[in-house]
């Protein structure tokens, strides 16, 4: 990292970074190292003694059907949310980029769900699909489809996916639109002169040029689905019914605060940590590559 023209005070820089560094140490690095430490410890039933158990906690959770179920649920949930949120946002962004009149109005009307808390988004959709009073649930019943996400795990999954997607579309829309507007008009015009029609231009010119944005958003969406959707799950399904929507983040919370399984929760934390770290590495390596273009 480049050191630029600067100052050579001896004490001042330490005072300046102190607040950030102290908070980081106390609330980030220390707890994270505690999680690492506890993940290789086990407490006796009375909480009196702990002993070193190596990777036993990890082995235990990886054999636990509940955890494997949670992994499976998380995969289904994340893939569905990322695919839906990216696809719909791309469709809307391409449309908004095409229209001449009203583009700004559409933009304003599409971006605000970003501001809605995930938990609140969950409440909105839960109300729509409430089996006894929800408008959509009623409409579905009228069409002969019996909706009750409190009993049906697949329906519960669909509901949280919808709520999570609804909230994320605006974020993806903003980035796709910015990406589309960054494509030089001359390129599109050159393709048009070369005889490529609208569809062909989209598939051969626009989409490839948009792929860095899409890849970046894919990573962000996966991170979102993994970590930022806790509020949706907690407020809509609490992981149920029968653990059908128990994603990893919800399980780590539940095991720590409701089931009080210290070592297991710590091991789960460490696995989650590994997931975030690899996602961050992917993201940064990719960002670096983007800089070199």
């Amino acid at each position, binding site marked *: 990292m480049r050191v630029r023209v*600067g100052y050579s005070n001896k004490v001042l820089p330490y005072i300046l970074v102190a607040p950030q560094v102290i908070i980081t140490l106390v609330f980030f*690095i220390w707890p994270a190292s505690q999680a690492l430490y506890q993940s290789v410890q086990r407490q006796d039933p009375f909480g009196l003694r702990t002993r070193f158990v190596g990777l036993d906690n990890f082995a235990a959770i990886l054999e636990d059907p509940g955890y494997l179920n949670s992994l499976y649920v998380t995969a289904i949930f994340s893939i569905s949310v990322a695919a839906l949120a990216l696809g719909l946002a791309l469709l809307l962004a391409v449309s908004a980029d095409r229209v001449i009149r009203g583009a700004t109005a559409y933009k*304003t009307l599409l971006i605000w769900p*970003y501001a*809605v*808390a995930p938990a609140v988004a969950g409440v909105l959709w839960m109300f729509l699909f409430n089996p006894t009073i929800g408008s959509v649930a*009623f409409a579905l019943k009228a069409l002969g489809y019996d909706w009750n996400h409190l009993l049906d795990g697949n329906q519960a999954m669909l509901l949280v996916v919808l709520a999570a997607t609804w909230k994320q579309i605006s974020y993806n829309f903003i*980035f796709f639109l910015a990406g589309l507007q960054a494509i030089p008009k001359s390129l599109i015009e050159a393709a048009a002169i070369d005889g490529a029609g609208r569809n062909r231009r989209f598939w051969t010119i626009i989409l490839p040029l948009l792929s860095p944005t899409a890849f970046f958003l894919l990573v962000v969406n996966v991170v979102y689905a993994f970590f930022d959707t806790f509020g949706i799950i907690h407020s809509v399904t609490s992981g149920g019914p029968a653990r059908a929507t128990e994603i990893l983040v919800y399980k780590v919370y539940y095991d720590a605060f409701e089931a009080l399984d210290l070592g297991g929760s*710590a091991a789960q*934390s460490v696995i989650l940590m590994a997931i975030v770290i690899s996602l961050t590495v992917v993201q940064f390596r990719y960002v670096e590559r983007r800089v070199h273009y």
Partner: protein
Amino acid sequence: MIEKKGMGTWLTHAVLILGVLTVAFPIYVTFVASSLTLREVLDAPMTLIPGSHLVENYRTALFSGTRMNATPVAGMLLNSLIMALVIASGKIVISLLSAFAVVYFRFPLRMVFFWMIFITLMLPVEVRILPTFKVVSDLEMLNSFPGLTIPLIASATATFLFRQFFMTIPDELVEASKIDGAGPMRFFRDVLLPLSRTNIAALFVILFIYGWNQYLWPLLITTDHRMDTIVIGIRRMLAAGDDQIEWPVVMATTMLAMIPPVLVVVVMQRWFVKGLVDSEK
């Protein structure tokens, strides 16, 4: 532009209008429910025409809360506002300071601190949930605003954003200020801060929403109802059990929970988009 007109146009508009309606529909239904009586809400199918009990429901929510919960939403709004403001301004202040130190000073532990801040990116609350709770509890910060806000104030994203921005400021400006006789803090106050105004505004929008929408953290840290933020408050109201839920009041509370952050995004749209796009670079 080529082929902007023509037969695809109405289809494009149709897609957009459908998108806008889908995005808006849940909110509209919520709004309608917040203007009805409980009986009207429970009378399936619920009407989609706003009723006449809007003011009444919002007043009930704001000043008395639901019967089961009995915590006025006005207090929750205030808690959310305090939390969002403290987190947003706290993050901005400490990130400005540390970015300033990392960019403009040479000191032995500079890179160590830089990486330490970077690592926080990889440690969201969810991956260190129990030990962090324990730290806050050991520091006796449970059920307090410091406990609710301070642990969330560290920010790698904001630090990197300001660092990035400071790097674009020409070296000559620092040198000119040195020759003009300004020391580091004076340069920070008179030159860096005013130049960072748009970045601060952009980041503030993003961070305000981040703070307002916190869920897991307040869920862990607060048990006292007087500390409830509005997002947590809704959850408590819904925990009453299906037959006991006072939907109109809950829906009014839901609307109240959305209005401030949505307003911030819509009013400060320009900064919001800039902040969002910049902070991901």
